[in-house]
């Protein structure tokens, strides 16, 4: 501190900017006022109230102001509310085009909403900036107050200056009693109320729950930790979010585990509530829909054994069977596998017979795995079928050529070459669902469709979130801080002998009602006069 320090008449040296002596409580800006003292932060020297010159001071003072803090909170509040007027982009149907969607669904206002970028409000730069401002404000405001407050509470002395006593909100004078006796009795009663009592020259300072003064600072630290945790998710490696579609019977490497874990879907189960269930009958009749009861993937978790050799299937070791349900993810090494979606009855395999069109005679059956068709299917007696081309998700492109939209067999189509003793060079047939074309002229044989095999597919999400611990930690600190500050309050009672009188003053950082009730008991037990609440309308508001 380069500025001059302030020496009080009690001998204590206070930092520059102090309003009330840290030790004896004498108001240092003597204005002879009879007004109540402003006890917030004990009249300590806060940087923001003391230094106001340089640009750094200005920024500091801006962010340390509670008024500014409140404005930031209000702006966040209003922005958050605006974001709920229409659905955010992530909640509109996935196939919808947002440029059209908002206009179509919500008319002009919807279009405006979209153009202002409110469809993605919570990810916008200015929303992030508001959150950053909140964090900055929290840090600066807390630092500005914490250190001076700590100093003055640490340095406070028992015997308080006259004008400090008089200018407390709770203050009273008792005369004409046996002082020693009254103070002794008061002390006993005060101790019963759980106060720590310090004595000096026959005067008392009773104090309790000072720790609650740190509540706001603790909760602000918790919030800051939480905000930092939230930021960390944008760093690589901290966060992973992958969708994994797994067919029944399929085994796949779990994303994010570098191939060291595999998951098999043994069975997907979808259960609905029974419509005739006694209990729920009425409700189900009213909504007139079946209500799902359970989505479950019976999964088996495998671990890869040893090193994986390229080109070879991995050697897997079963770790455990686990039914993955909504609300019950499978947990592996900080990774969670969640049940989020499903598709029922996806095509899996198709079965055909090779048939002579005239005689209707068939020559063996073949089942084509739609995810992994063989090149050639050998049938008996020298009959065989070659798969010349396979389109899992068949459509005609602009040039009227057959192509596939995706690798998922939503609409499988084949070009088969059928070999028979009569046709050693093969006959070509185009086969799709309910279609049988013969592009190269009339054939003698055809592929006759027998049946399909379907499987359910589980939609799983693999999540890693290494920030959760930090968030949980921040949240816990926040809770501890709020509870500290809200469920306890700091109370002090000063008793001082002045000539033939006993002066008594009291202060509570909140819940004056509680302090007054305690004083009632204390004064009744000791014969002291109940001090008065000196707050008038005006000052109570400070």
């Amino acid at each position, binding site marked *: 501190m380069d500025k001059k320090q302030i020496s009080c008449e009690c001998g204590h040296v206070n930092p520059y900017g102090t309003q009330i002596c840290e030790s004896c409580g004498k108001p240092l800006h003597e204005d002879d006022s009879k007004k109540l003292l402003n006890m*917030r932060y004990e009249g300590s020297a806060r940087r923001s109230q003391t230094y106001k010159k340089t640009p750094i001071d200005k920024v500091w003072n801006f962010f340390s102001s*509670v*008024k500014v*803090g*409140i404005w930031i*909170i*209000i702006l*966040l*509040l209003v922005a*958050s*509310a605006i*974001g*709920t*007027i229409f*659905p*955010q982009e*992530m*909640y509109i149907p996935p196939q919808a085009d947002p440029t059209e969607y908002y206009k*179509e*669904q*919500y*008319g002009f206002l919807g279009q405006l909403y979209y153009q202002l970028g409110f469809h993605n409000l*919570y990810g916008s730069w200015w929303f992030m900036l508001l959150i950053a401002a909140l964090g900055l404000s929290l840090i600066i405001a807390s630092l500005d107050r914490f250190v001076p407050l700590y100093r003055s509470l640490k340095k406070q002395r028992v015997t308080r200056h006259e004008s400090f006593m008089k200018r407390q909100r709770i203050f009273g004078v008792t005369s004409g009693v046996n002082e020693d006796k009254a103070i002794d009795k008061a002390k006993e009663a005060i101790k019963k109320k759980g106060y720590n009592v310090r004595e000096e020259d026959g005067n008392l300072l009773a104090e309790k729950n000072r720790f609650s003064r740190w509540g706001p600072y603790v909760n602000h630290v918790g919030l800051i930790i939480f905000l930092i945790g939230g930021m960390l998710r944008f760093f690589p490696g901290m966060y992973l*979010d992958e969708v994994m579609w797994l067919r029944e019977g399929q085994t796949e490497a779990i994303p994010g585990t570098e191939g060291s874990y595999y998951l098999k879907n043994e069975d997907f189960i979808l259960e609905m*509530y029974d419509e005739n*269930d006694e*209990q*729920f009958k*009425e*409700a*189900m009749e*009213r909504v007139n829909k079946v*209500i*799902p*009861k*359970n*989505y479950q993937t019976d999964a088996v978790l495998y671990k890869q054994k040893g090193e994986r050799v390229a080109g070879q299937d991995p050697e897997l070791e079963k770790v455990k069977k686990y039914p993955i*349900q*909504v*609300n019950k*993810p499978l947990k592996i090494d900080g990774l*969670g596998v*969640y049940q*989020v979606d499903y598709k029922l009855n996806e095509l899996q395999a198709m079965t055909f017979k090779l048939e002579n069109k005239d005689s209707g005679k068939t020559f063996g059956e073949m089942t084509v795995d739609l995810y992994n068709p063989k090149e050639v299917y050998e049938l008996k007696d020298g009959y065989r079928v070659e798969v010349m081309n396979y389109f899992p998700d068949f459509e005609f492109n602009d040039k009227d050529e057959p192509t596939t939209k995706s690798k998922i067999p939503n609409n499988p189509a084949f070009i088969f070459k059928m070999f028979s003793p009569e046709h050693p060079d093969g006959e070509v047939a185009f086969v799709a669902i309910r279609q049988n074309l013969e592009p190269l002229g009339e054939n003698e044989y055809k592929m006759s469709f027998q049946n399909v095999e379907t499987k359910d597919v589980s939609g799983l*999400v693999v*999540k890693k979130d290494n920030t*959760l611990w930090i*968030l949980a930690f921040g*949240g816990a600190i926040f*809770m501890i801080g*709020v509870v500290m500050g*809200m*469920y306890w309050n700091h109370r002090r009672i000063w008793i001082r002998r002045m000539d033939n009188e006993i002066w008594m003053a009291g202060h509570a950082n*909140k*819940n*004056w*009602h509680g302090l007054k009730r305690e004083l009632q008991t204390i004064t009744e037990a000791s014969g002291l006069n109940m001090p008065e609440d000196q707050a008038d309308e005006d000052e*109570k*508001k*400070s």
Partner: protein
Amino acid sequence: MAQLSSNLLYIAFFIYFAGTIVFAISVLGKKWRKRDEETHEKRWGRIGFGLSLIGFLFQLGYFFTRWNAAGHVPVSNMFEFTTFFGMMMVFAFLIIYLIYKTNILGVVAMPVAMLVIAYASVFPSEIEPLIPALQSNWLKIHVTTAALGEGILAISFAAGLIYLLKEVNQSTSSKNTFWLEFVMYVILATIAFVIISMSFKAAGFESTYQFSDPNGQELTVTYTLPAIVGPDGGEYVSGSEFGPLFDAPSWMRGENAARKLNTLIWSALGGLVLYGLVRLILRKRIGAFFQPMVKNVNSDLVDEIGYRSVAIGFPVFTLGALIFAMIWAQAAWTRFWGWDPKEVWALITWLFYAAYLHLRLSRGWHGKKSAWLAVIGFVIIMLNLVVVNLVISGLHSYA
């Protein structure tokens, strides 16, 4: 069991009513038979408290018997949650009453809780099965704690209302008197909504309309109140023949948008009628009518009660509506936070009360301003319950 459960709820409701009357007597009847005022207040206050407590126990009975019947905690639809919220308000009142022993609080807080419960009873009350996302222990913990937090915060609304009834100058009309009357009007409109819904339900009113949505899909909607407003381009299909007097504007396209608008209009009109009647009988502002009853109230104490309820409720709300909610969302939806409207409104509520607490640190925000803030806070809580559930649909939407 389900029958027993709903009977217990009725009984609880009537005991709450009796408790309210007794609290009113404790405040108003001080001059009766020239009894000593303090003993009168103490005695009737104790009876009022006892009745509220017994009512609360009956409602707990409702809660646990319904839990038993349903096999899951009854907080999973609009009826159940709102009833529970009312119960938590009563619970919060009981706690605050034990600290401050102010009878006038009972006169205001108990009716507000009753109104919340009455509002709940308009919603379908059959026991519903739980969809997979709701099958979690965290559901119980999250919803119950959140409702408790909101219940405690709601007491600050009751305290704020008392403060305003006492301190707003009724000799001239001002912004303060206008908004105070508006609060009274909203309360009456809610009562009107409950009465109208119940009456038409009892009369078995139902009519169905057909209309097409913007994607050209044919939809039907069933009105349980006579249609003042029908869906845009809607056609009468079946049921009671009445109206619609006019069509909803074409931009209201949601499946139930027109029906909800219709309900809103009924409530607003019903509220106007009730308000008009009350004004006609009282021949003065409702606020002015109540003012003499609260003239002996210690304003500072009421102001402190309001603040204290926020101080007690804020941590509980944080824990229930944000922290436990995040833990549950992480398990159910793979992410602890997703900016779903309901989540956002919980955040808004939290930010609002954080702002309240910080404003209390500054000069000039105690007293009247604080009381108005408490009113706004309650409006936000109710918005989250009513509008977000029924209008803005999201993952949490109940109807």
